[in-house]
């Protein structure tokens, strides 16, 4: 018997995947519908390639975790997906529609991003932090926005803190507000960029539990993280980047046990606890 709903969910997934043909990243048409289909994504700064020919598919309701050493292009990948970086080559299809045909503010409401540094709006209280996007981007009424924001704040365990200012919250609470702010827009894909890397170790778990809750709730997630055990636990599919290129991709167990020399070296370093994990790094 699984000890927790998380394990239960993982087992269910594994059982399903054992019965069904694997539809890993890169699966072409004919597989389950992809909410996000990334093809040949590239990005350069001057002559330096940050991302090169990155392709993967994210199925609806699934979680993709992206791992790799610092500077491998993980954050840049997320920033390309919601167009915070403009100079990205290749194509991204969101539910079959090329994202470059969608206006950037609309796209960012459909592909949400939570960054590692929280970046809550310091002049607004917690509730207003969450309602701002709902009111301005989603054009929701004040009442509806407040109700949805309150519901998401409760879901991330922050009920009762609606009137607090960001600086009155712990780092973990601030990050949970940031997640609620993005998730309340109910985007088709939510991108989480090292959401635990700026937190004290004792606060990491509370945020990881929120992410697991989102994954359990059927939100399509892409999670960039240096926490390899968490990346394996939360994901249906794991993708390893190095030097802006996909080194390995597939179910977490397969990626972790990969024979690819660069993947083996990276995971061995992490297993020894010497993997680089600088707080606040950004590729």
């Amino acid at each position, binding site marked *: 018997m699984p000890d927790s709903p998380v394990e239960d969910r993982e087992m269910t997934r594994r059982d399903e995947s054992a019965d069904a043909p694997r539809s890993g990243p890169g699966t072409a048409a004919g597989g389950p519908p992809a909410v996000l289909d990334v093809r040949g994504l590239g990005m350069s700064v001057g002559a330096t390639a940050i991302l090169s020919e990155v392709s993967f598919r994210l199925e609806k309701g699934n979680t993709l975790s992206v791992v790799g050493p610092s500077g491998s292009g993980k954050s840049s990948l997320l920033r390309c997906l*919601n167009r*915070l970086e403009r100079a990205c080559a290749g194509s991204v299809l969101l539910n079959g529609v090329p994202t470059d045909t969608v206006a*950037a*503010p*609309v796209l*960012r*409401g459909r592909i*949400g*991003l*939570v*960054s590692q*540094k929280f*970046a*809550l*709006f*310091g*002049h*607004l*209280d917690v*509730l*207003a932090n969450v*309602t*701002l*996007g709902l*009111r*301005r*981007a*989603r054009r929701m009424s*004040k009442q509806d*926005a*407040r109700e949805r924001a309150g519901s998401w704040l409760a879901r991330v365990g922050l009920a009762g803190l609606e*009137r*607090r*200012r960001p*600086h*009155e919250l712990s780092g973990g609470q601030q990050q949970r507000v*940031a997640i609620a*702010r*993005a998730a309340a*827009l109910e985007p088709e894909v939510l991108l989480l960029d090292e959401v635990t890397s700026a937190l004290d170790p004792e606060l990491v778990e509370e945020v990881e539990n929120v992410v697991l809750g989102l994954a359990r709730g059927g939100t399509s997630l892409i999670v960039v993280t240096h926490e390899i055990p968490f990346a394996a636990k939360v994901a249906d599919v794991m993708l390893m980047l190095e030097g802006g290129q996909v080194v390995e991709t597939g179910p977490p167990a397969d990626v972790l046990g990969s024979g690819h020399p660069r993947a083996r070296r990276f995971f061995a370093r992490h297993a020894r606890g010497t993997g680089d994990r600088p707080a606040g790094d950004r590729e």
Partner: protein
Amino acid sequence: MNAIGENLPFLLGGFVLTLGYAAGALVIAMVLGGVLGTADYAVAHRPVRWAIRGFVGLFRNTPFIVQLYIWFFGLPYVGVQLSPAAASLAGLGLYGAGYVTEIVRAALAGVGTEQEEAALSVGLTHWDLTLRVVWPQGFPAMVPALTNEAVALVKNTSLLGFITVTELTLRTQQAISSTFASLPLYLTAGVLYLVVNVLLTVLARRMETVLARRRRGSALNRGRTSRTETANA
């Protein structure tokens, strides 16, 4: 002392004019500078930004007295004759706007890319992020520099006498020419400038304190501030 007493009503009349021109020019400078500074920060269209920077470069990098002469004595050469009052308001207002534009732009830019990207990430347009995220957080940083600008503007009214505006300094000089009591009369004018500028500074400090308290969200005003901001969200 006698010279002061005899000329005080005359000087106070000039002081009222000084306050009027300063207030009018301050409104022009703040509104125009606020709009141009915000546009310089928010508008991606390069020609617009070049035009704004040209305006700032022109009005900030040339002496006020030269600008004032051009407004009053130069424009008639191209068929535009401004009254002393209009030339004074235009001259002081645009000169101040050059500085205010830069103050506003720098304060908005200082809010930082993290806040900008967080706002963009929740689907805000560039104007929404500018007006609802960046401006409220950038404004406290503007207040001290805008206060300096307001004080400088009040003192610059003393040059309006060059185009026949009988403000405080010109009236002081007129009073001196008939009494020869230069030191007491200049001291009197100085005290009047000092009073208005100290008042401006005190008001600005008070505003800084209120803004800082709001940012801290102290227990005292948390409820009121949150209600206001939530209502605006």
